[in-house]
């Protein structure tokens, strides 16, 4: 090692380098950032609120210069509704993913660390979840809690935690056998010390990957339920809801169907690709591409 000033490089720095080299993930990361910005600055970049029916006169008008996405069936500016739809979709995605991590991380860590009956119990619950058809159960739940913002988050988190739990459990299981865990036990460390000082810092990558991958799942579930009328109730704008309305006008007013569909597709794809990029960057052992 040459003696000059040696730049200290943490493993996360190299993960960042690997992420930058993955063009697809980078581009989708930028798109995702733009969409997030758009939804935060929604009031600034839209003319009216998402409810004001100011353009009843030229109802269902096609996209024009002053109304980029045209007018919807109730005379509201469609571009505004799409932008506010982003806010709904993303917030549900992020909050549900956060809850998925809040539920999945501890369960995964405990199942992985203690094994035995704890692990058996957690795995039976996961088995139960993987056997019930997800959408049908979600529909049933949505009907039970009468749809709405918070209940959708609850349902999305209910199905999201399984993924995070499995990722964390696998990571803890593989690290539990590592010698540096044995060494710290040999030093006299208590289980709590080992979990917080060794296992959790090394589980950052599955947690981040689990979180980012839970977002598109939650968004898709919200859009699906809203599409079936059991999700977000009007007037709160949701892309799934708009697509449902869009079908009826599809033959004559294509813009009502096209824009929400594209919006949802782009957002979900950007998030998923961004998540995949993170996963490959954080865990170089999965040599998928080259």
């Amino acid at each position: 090692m040459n003696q000059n000033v040696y730049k200290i490089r943490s493993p996360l720095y190299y993960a960042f380098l690997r992420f930058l080299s993955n063009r697809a993930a980078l581009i989708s990361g930028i798109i995702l950032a733009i969409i997030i910005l758009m939804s935060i600055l929604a009031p600034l970049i839209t003319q009216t609120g998402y409810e004001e029916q100011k353009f009843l006169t030229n109802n269902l008008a096609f996209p024009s210069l002053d109304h980029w996405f045209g007018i919807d069936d109730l005379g509201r500016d469609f571009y505004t509704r799409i932008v506010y739809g982003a806010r709904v979709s993303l917030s549900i995605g992020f909050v549900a993913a956060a809850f998925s991590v809040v539920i999945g991380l501890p369960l995964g860590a405990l199942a992985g660390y203690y094994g035995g009956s704890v692990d058996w119990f957690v795995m039976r619950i996961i088995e139960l979840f993987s056997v019930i058809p997800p959408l049908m159960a979600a529909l049933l739940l949505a009907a039970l809690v009468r749809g709405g913002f918070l209940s959708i988050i609850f349902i999305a988190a209910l199905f999201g935690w399984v993924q995070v739990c499995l990722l964390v459990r696998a990571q803890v299981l593989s690290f539990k056998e590592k010698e540096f865990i044995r060494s710290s036990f040999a030093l006299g460390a208590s289980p709590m010390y080992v979990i917080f000082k060794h296992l959790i810092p090394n589980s950052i990558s599955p947690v981040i990957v689990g979180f980012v991958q839970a977002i598109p799942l939650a968004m898709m579930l919200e859009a699906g339920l809203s599409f079936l009328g059991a999700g977000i109730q009007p007037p709160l704008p949701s892309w799934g809801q708009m697509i449902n309305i869009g079908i009826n006008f599809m033959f004559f007013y294509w813009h009502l169907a096209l824009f929400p569909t594209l919006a949802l597709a782009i957002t979900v794809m950007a998030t998923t690709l961004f998540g995949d990029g993170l996963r490959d960057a954080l865990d170089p052992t999965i040599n998928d591409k080259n």
Partner: protein
Amino acid sequence: MIFYIFRRLLSVIFTFIAVSIIVFIMMHSIPGGPFDPVDMPLSKAAKDLIMKQYGLDQQLHIQYFKYMWGVLHFDFGIPYQSPGETVLELLGRAWVPSLVLGGLGVLIGAPIGILLGMVAALRRNSFVDYFASAISTLGLTIPVFVFSMLLILLFSVWLNWLPASGWGEPRKWILPIIAYAAIPMATYARYTRSSMLDILNKPFVMVLRAKGLSEKTIIFRHVLRNSAIPMVTVFLPMFIGTATGSIFVEAMFRVPGLGAYFVSSIHTKDYPLEMALLLMITVMFCFAYFLADLAYAILNPRIRLNSKREE
């Protein structure tokens, strides 16, 4: 071997009962009953008569046990929305469109996906590799109803080649089948590609080359055989998932399949139909996973011939 099968059957029964309880309670706690004045303007007396006739006035747990007793005798009760037939008959009728469209979707989608995955793994960083990765990413990320919407917009609305909806003569089947095929194709493309790449990097492939085997023999006789095992275990659960119909595809293409009936049974709170649908699909998933594990154990000699290492 029998010991293992017995343990798995036990867990299937346990799951069946657990799911039935959860669903039963959830179903009945949805506010409003099947014969509310809102849906059907009925006088109080007439409503009580019907409730009595369907046994809905009894206490919840009694209803549950009566229902489960019926299930044991394959009597899933009478659907409220079409009292003329039993739930089983309705399901038999309703499953045909889902099975045909979903089934064909998987049977078409999976092989194409496998082919794409194989070519992508063999021609790495070539056009096909990027195309296959793009297809698999698209397929897995775009929600199915969005994809169906795009199909309808493209082929029915603008190009006007295919009818947008309906179930009947085969021309109407094309779009739903494509919609169904998207996810299996994408999953298998990605799955085949990564499992083949994984096998290709294994040391024994280098030994095969050093032995002088031709690249073709190595791929078809060894690499494919090794990467086939994970693919076989994925097939059955995926087939069940798709062949029981997707609510979205059936809603978008107005197909009277299981998904459609499920949605309507929730709105009309058609308890027997709802329960039967959910339980049937859950049991099928249980068996699918069980058979998948069994197939994995049989195909993999390491588990089939589980003997100590010969000294």
